[in-house]
């Protein structure tokens, strides 16, 4: 399974770090602690940036390579954060011929991120997804649970504006 590694700078808080240290202390004597600690760490941070994996490796006294090996093996572990608003652009055939490629490019340009990335402020993440079955509305994007259809690239700024805090 391919995983996209986040390029966003790590923004963990001291509170999160204290919580992670507690988790590590709780599991340090368990054999096979890496997985449960990664699971709880993802609960704390929302994803597993390399900084968190390094803290886990040092805390549990296992090589980082082993922690990284585990975090990239299991599909449940996310190496890249999801934004507060996750935008999925349908790349099904119908949407694609109606210009979902342009829509994706426009979103990418407006947000300053590529597909499978998340903005620096954690507000938006962008994914290209498979056909969501709304071909009659092509091209379609979803922002969390909201569906927008019959889009053109120039409609994107107005839509995004609704979600900017």
């Amino acid at each position, binding site marked *: *399974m391919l995983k996209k590694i986040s390029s966003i700078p790590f923004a963990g808080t001291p509170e999160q770090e204290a919580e992670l240290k507690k988790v590590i202390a709780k599991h340090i004597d368990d*054999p*096979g*602690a*890496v*997985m*449960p600690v*990664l*699971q709880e760490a993802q609960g704390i941070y929302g994803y597993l940036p390399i900084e968190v994996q390094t803290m886990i490796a040092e805390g549990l006294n296992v090589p980082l390579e*082993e922690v990284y*090996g*585990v975090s990239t*093996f*299991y*599909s*449940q*572990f996310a190496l890249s954060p999801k934004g507060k608003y996750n935008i999925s652009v349908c790349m*099904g*055939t*119908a*949407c694609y*011929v*109606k210009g979902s490629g342009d829509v994706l490019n426009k979103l990418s340009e407006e947000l300053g991120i590529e597909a499978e990335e998340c903005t620096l402020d954690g507000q938006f993440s962008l994914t290209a997804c498979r056909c969501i079955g709304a*071909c*009659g509305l*092509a*091209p379609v994007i979803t922002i969390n649970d909201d569906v927008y259809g019959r889009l053109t690239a120039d409609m994107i700024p107005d839509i995004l504006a609704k979600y900017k805090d």
Partner: protein
Amino acid sequence: MYRSNVLVCGGTGCTSSDSLKIVEKLKEEIAARGLEKEVNVITTGCFGLCALGPIVVIYPEGSFYSMVNIDDIPEIVEEHLLKGRIVTRLLYQETVEEDTIKSLNDTAFYSKQMRIALRNCGVIDPEKIDEYIAMDGYAALGKVLTEMTPESVIETILNSGLRGRGGAGFPTGLKWKFAAANDADQKYVCCNADEGDPGAFMDRSILEGDPHALLEAMAIAGYAIGATKGYVYVRAEYPIAVNRLQIAIDQAHEYGLLGDNIFGTDFCFDVQLRLGAGAFVCGEETSLMTSIEGKRGEPRPRPPFPAVKGLYKKPTILNNVETYANIPRIILLGADWFQGIGTEKSKGTKVFALGGKIEHTGLVEVPMGTTLRTIVEEIGGGIPNGKKFKAAQTGGPSGGCIPPQHLDIPIDYDNLLEIGSMMGSGGLIVMDETTCMVDIAKFFLEFTVDESCGKCTPCRIGTKRLLEMLDKITKGQGTLEMLDEMEDLCHYIKANSLCGLGQTAPNPVLSTLNYFRDEYVQHVVDKKCVAGVCKDLLEFSIIKDKCFGCSMCARQCPADAIKVTDYTAPGKKKPAYEIDTTKCVKCGACLPTCKFGAIVKG
């Protein structure tokens, strides 16, 4: 004592349709009428008829309310619980026969079933150990610890003929015997609750509906092989199951049924939960153990078998949830009782998760040897919309498709293997004529390619090559030579892969090639997909004589492929439309817009 007990399904299916809100509302309405001392509301495990959820059953009458809406609750409480009048309109209609109301057990869905592993699902509150104990819970553990030797426990399981319910069907007693024979300072009992097959939810329902049965059985296994520690490896995607298991473990500790000196003997046994993290290969025994050790869940070569060197290189047994769920019953009722159920080589019952193109989607438990026809047509209620049965898929990505000519074969381990499928853990997906068998094979291969751990080459690269060929065939770029090439590759992957995932991954391709070769040939030679699934081989067209020229389809078309013509059909006022196949993207958006059935695909 309560005069009425209201059972509400708290399984995953019904919970998604808000059954927990129904519980709240019931309690509220009952309290409003001052009945809380007379009527008890219980959240149970799965009843099995998931298609009809949310489900509410009221005893002593046994009234089975299906597809209950939260707005129906005041009426049920007022009429049924207060005034004693059953609300017939809201009952599962199969239980209503003119003036009389049948017991649930007499309906087609339940009458052919035999519930051993699911005995307590939908009967007890899984979060209350007392209810489990009231159903003879932990009596088997008590019997084992105070009256039986470890050897006699293993003897009983061996004699019962119980075989592993995880798929391969290895005799459970034999597994235990091997592990018992190996001396070690520490041994382990593991439970495989990493149910990863798409379309399978048997184990989830047992974990959610009867978690103590699993704990009791694991303790019995621990006593039999001389282990003091157990692990349940459960999917993190099953939050309700994880939660109920943890509650069950805590309660068992509190009652002294887990921990030190169980039943006042010197037997000690403890169970820990380990959460999986979404890797299908971890359902394979050696991978699962590597994963419990906190590593990448990659398989190890066997031998050494886990009974010799398993978890942390110590003798270990691993059984599936459903296998364990049978154990307490076998101990209490005896090997002979279990021997009496099923076929010559497959004893007992099997739980199936019925899904796909079938009326009663849900969970069924039938004696081994029941025919597929009974399961599909009688228990499952047949195929919706008058469509024809085409195949049943068992064993998920490791299994194969069973065609109509084998509908009457008694289902057991050996028969299924003989016809090129396998029992698997119990997923049973029914397919009708609108399912394309090449597409299904491709679907499962996509899954195995994604889930192959990558350790051994035949599986990692072989499945990928298979998928590429299937992809070409569904796009009309296949050749007849390709079919033979695929078959060869399948046998190669089966023979050379390290673990069960690779060894069984080609099964969906092999079985469809075997039974539905015609369909492959149609894709390759005629460039047609009769089921109308493979988009590249489809063509949409408008029957001009049926077209009223309303333009609905043209307005819906995302590709601007539908244009008006200068032909007006006899008796119609406007000119007909036609589809420009060079522009059509085959999205199918036009199809539902036509009220006159003028658009066809094929």
